[in-house]
């Protein structure tokens, strides 16, 4: 049986992944990084299952740790030796690709960032993922939405419900 597929723009998938990460419990900054890395992972032919797994409770640490570690490397702190734990997570390269600067994951788990070279690999016009994953990401993202109440419907947006002027 053929699996149902979803073809979307990079931005909508990035947004979807970011919301899913927030819904899964990641703080805002890490969730945003996950969305950026996620589309690079897909664009580089990575397995969408890696993204699904990262969003699971068991592996959420990757969403929390990798961007923080990369941010730490960018800080160039003295006396700090930051490395990814082996085995290198399949999303690590994508996190580096999403940086504006040239960045590489080395074999020993260290990350090299060249602050003077601005480069970001181009992204395709479309990305295709399974509807199964999209449904999972949407369900996680929906956890960040506030259920509607009559009060929020009437007052939350500051506008009325009809505009027949």
């Amino acid at each position, binding site marked *: 049986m053929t699996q149902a597929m979803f073809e979307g723009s990079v931005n909508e998938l990035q947004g979807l992944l970011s919301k899913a990460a927030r819904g899964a419990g990641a703080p805002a900054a*890490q969730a945003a990084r996950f969305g950026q890395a996620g589309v690079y992972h897909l664009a580089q032919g990575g397995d969408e299952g890696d993204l699904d797994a990262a969003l699971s409770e068991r592996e959420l640490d990757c969403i*929390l740790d990798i961007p923080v570690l990369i941010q730490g490397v960018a800080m160039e702190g003295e006396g700090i030796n930051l490395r990814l734990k082996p085995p290198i997570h399949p999303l690590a390269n994508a996190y580096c690709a999403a940086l504006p600067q040239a960045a590489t994951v080395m074999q020993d788990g260290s990350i090299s960032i060249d602050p003077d070279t601005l480069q970001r690999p181009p992204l395709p016009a479309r990305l295709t993922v399974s509807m199964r994953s999209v449904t999972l990401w949407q369900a996680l993202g929906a956890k960040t*939405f506030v259920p*509607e109440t009559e009060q929020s419907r009437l007052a939350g947006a500051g*506008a009325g419900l009809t505009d027949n002027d």
Partner: protein
Amino acid sequence: MKDFAAPPQMPLRPPSDVMRLARMGAMFPTRLSFLRVLMRRLASEEVVVERPVWNMCENGFGHAVYSLKLGGYTYSLVAVSTDLPPEKRTDRVIAEAWDSAYVLYDGVPGAAEIARICASAPKQEAGRFTQRDLVLSRANKSVRLFAHVVEALRAGTQPNADMIRDIGYLMRTTAVYGNGKFGIADRGLIENRPALEGPFAAEMLTVWMIRSFTHDLVEHVGQGTLERRFKRHLGIGNSTGLGMAPFLVNHPVLLNNWMIARETGLARVRAIPAFDADEVARITALAKRAAQHLEEWSVPDPEHQARVTRLRADWADFTHDIHADMALPNPADVIHRRAQTMSLDIQELAAAMVLEPFGALIDGLAECMGDPFGALPVYPKDTSGLRADINACFAWALTPDYTCTDESRQFWYVSEAKQEPRLGDRYAEDGAHLESPLDIGRRIKALHSDLPKTTRPLAEFLMAHPEHGLAIERVALAKRYPYAEIHDNLIARTCLPIDMLRCKLSFFGASKFDPKSDRWTRITLCQGAPLRDELGQGGDDWWLPVFGA
């Protein structure tokens, strides 16, 4: 490679002055506004707009296609007009049907593509789109004016001039989506195309073409020709709500680049040693035009109308002595300094006015208003450096006591109903645990509180406190992007989102702000802008448009 010396300039107004909500909520469009930049480009290329398809019934329902060549590419607006029952007409995001729907298409659509768009565009958020679809939009009629113009044209007369002047648009857009939403093209696909490199350029092109469509539609249904002066004044309305506010917080580099371009323009103009006779005449005319514009700016909300009325009187006082100002050295600076003794509205109106005659000096700054590289934070090495940066750039964030209910009264969130952005009362409504991270000030203060007394490597601190990742990044952006942050508490009871909306909309080129609440406004875009058959005539003189000009 030639080196170009930057023009002389006065010091920029500091971020602590510029990036306050109250001032942002007093901004006016300038010649650096995106619509102005686009219209100059359209005029310089003498763009010709064609209408290869017009398939409308006598009541104005059907579809049309407009095409133009710009920067070496062809773009088409596909407009779909439908019969909307009055009870379904709402400008809210939660709407599910509209009077009209639009797609800006990459190229010229064939019959199959037109059919696809006609089927999907009216569904808006519920539809799916392709990478050939660059922008998605929809608009509702100003029923009163549309019906009146149709009636007048059908009677062989022209509409009531007062109604044209006072309402100023036949339709208003209620969303203009770009950058990949619902499957349309990512901005990355077009950001290097000539004429579309600037922020929101594709969206502004769409809006200007929709305006043309509304003119054609009313003439079609009315079976008559609207006077050119009326069409010139009929822009395109827009209803804007809270969704626009988070954009400014979530795109700090863009906000910085927009602000710094405008501030640099002002600083350059203030450094002009003297005005020549033409420049004096131009400022004089602009001051008079602004006065007329203010006279024509009337809104139903009493509080805002009172503000406009005050501004009219203050502007008359302010401009009374402007000739004397212009006789002094550095006349724009003199005008600017005298404005500082008056209201924020006067200060911002004067700033926008003095920019207007000096396109040669400032128009190039529009090229710096994008964000081609992404955010490039400058991290300090240790926690002491971070503390120093916070103290230097974020005093505004440290001042409020966020444990006080008034300082944390509001929370921003996304409703499950069509993902409409909304604002809630933290102490009266559920959902604050799902708050959107727009509380930058509170996050900075929390970070500041958690910094260790002894200096530690920043990376070590971050590893121990990953929850501060966002705040650390915002602090690290401040050095390179000094105008990236709004220097106010965005969750305070006193925070008025309308100020953020006005700031962003003024960069679009909006005028006639007509707030319907503190979080929702109507505006007019393209009022006074060249019509599609006027692009060869220059057409850059429509700052603060007035009726009949």
